[in-house]
């Protein structure tokens, strides 16, 4: 009897929460899937169009370009962020003076809002950098604007990833290095064969984290380029927001969102599989 009463409490806690979660996570997800088979503009009536939105997605050059840009950003960004934050973490973890102050200062970008940071960098790219390089603004250049987005995203993400790498480096016991030193490991070899394998789980976290965040980039686009110039920096999230809500493409962008969801899940799962298998090998 007593046991039964306990279970009742557990269910009384669980069920309302599941209802809430379903209502604002699963239900809109299903709704989005349903809208993706319609020509809804976001208001008024709509007709069923079957799979036409999906067929159109693959021939729509604007959608194609947004995927191209987002992948370009995510790939280059992930590499830049992880290389730099790994170097920074190794430096911040060595025997340096002002260690805790330096760590604290290097973390600042991560606590600031991406939108405001984007506005500040927008000014930097428009008025300061052209003066130094004697050229036009990167943001106005179709070939370079996406690099500016990478820089701003990296500026913030490096702070976060560095802290995670530092916490990884602190799990490496000192005597491993001492044993390694006896075998003559130093410099690059020490890093390659001792440190890196031991912080591999943290590498996995950081790769997945930065890739996922970059694929979903929105705030930086909003404040830096608004998708321009000539739609060269339109991220997928930005396109769904822009054309789905204001552009009368509610149904079409819902189909885009469904594909985007599948892409994100696939990439995350593949990344974790691949990196986990490497973790086990090491």
């Amino acid at each position, binding site marked *: 009897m007593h046991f039964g009463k306990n279970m009742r409490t*557990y269910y009384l806690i669980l069920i309302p929460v599941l209802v809430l979660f379903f209502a604002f996570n699963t239900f809109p997800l299903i709704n989005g899937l349903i809208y993706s088979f319609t020509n809804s503009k976001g208001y008024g009536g709509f007709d069923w169009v079957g799979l036409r939105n999906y067929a159109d997605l693959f021939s729509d050059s604007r959608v194609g370009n947004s995927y191209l840009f987002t992948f370009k950003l995510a790939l280059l960004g992930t590499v830049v962020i992880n290389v730099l934050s790994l170097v920074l973490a190794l430096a911040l973890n060595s025997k340096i003076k002002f260690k805790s102050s330096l760590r604290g200062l290097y973390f600042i970008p991560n606590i600031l809002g991406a939108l405001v940071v984007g506005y500040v960098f927008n000014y930097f790219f428009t008025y300061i950098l052209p003066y130094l390089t004697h050229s036009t603004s990167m943001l106005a250049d179709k070939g370079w604007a996406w690099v500016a987005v990478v820089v701003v995203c990296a500026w913030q993400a490096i702070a976060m990833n560095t802290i995670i790498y530092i916490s990884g480096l602190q799990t490496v016991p000192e005597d491993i290095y001492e044993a390694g030193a006896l075998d003559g490991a130093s410099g690059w070899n020490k890093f390659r064969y001792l440190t890196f394998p031991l912080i591999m789980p943290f590498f996995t976290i950081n790769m997945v984290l930065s890739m996922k965040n970059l694929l979903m980039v929105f705030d930086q686009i909003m404040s830096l380029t608004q998708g321009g110039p000539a739609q060269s920096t339109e991220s997928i999230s930005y396109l769904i927001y822009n054309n789905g809500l204001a552009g009368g493409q509610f149904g079409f962008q819902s189909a885009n969102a469904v594909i985007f969801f599948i892409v994100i899940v696939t990439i995350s799962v593949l990344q974790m599989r691949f990196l986990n298998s490497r973790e086990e090998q090491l």
Partner: protein
Amino acid sequence: MATSKVKEKFNWPVTILLLIGLVSVLFPLYMTVVIAFKSPTEMTTSIEGILSLPQTWSLDNFAKAIEVTDFWHSLLNSVLITAATIGISIVVHSLVAYAIGRNMASRKTFRFSYFYIVSGMFVPFAILMLPLVKETAQLHIDNPVGVVLLYVVFYMPMNVLLYTGYLKNIPVALEEAARVDGSTTWSTFWRIIFPLMGPMHATVAVLTALGTWNDVMTPLVIMSGNINTLPLAQLTFQTQFGTNYNLAFASYLLAMLPMLVFYLFAQKKIINGVINGAVK
């Protein structure tokens, strides 16, 4: 033997490189501060005019920015939304994690619930955005209440994962002893488990706060520009700033300030929270 000597020896070349590298972090902040304090007439077209220290440190830009962006209202909205999200998240997420964590091993329903909620982590906001705009409007919660509710749902996967992970380290024996004394599940949770989850509450608070305070997308699409949070106000009033960058930067600095001040006082807590969350 030699270790005490080694300990005192600092790696100066790396220290110096790190100090130089700090420019990349501090320069944008320096730029923000000097432009925010200057009057537009001081901003000559040359780079010296932009980056030199202001001749007088005037607060005029800030006074005007506060007026133009309706700063106090935005700040209040941000504080209320973030505080409510943190409070509700800590209570609801720890409670449901407790129910799930203690029954996962023996009951399928709870095991299924765990995977159901945690898999929500893969659902980006961009996917839910369009349907949620309709849903919240129909339910008349296209306001701060709706935003808080959505945050509680969006952060549930991560927080439930963190709390159930932490719960594994709390021995069941403690609760069983309380049960024998006639304590109910409900009161056992509040008297024993909730206080023991202290360190995880801090982590959840930090991660949820960083995410909600700086978020633009959710309030933007749900409240569609009628009600501002502090970051959102920077977007809404962008046109009002026009080419008066001094005014704009004063506003940006005001938007950054609460977090910077908070960080100054709770730096250790914040960094530890982020590490705990990421590593678990």
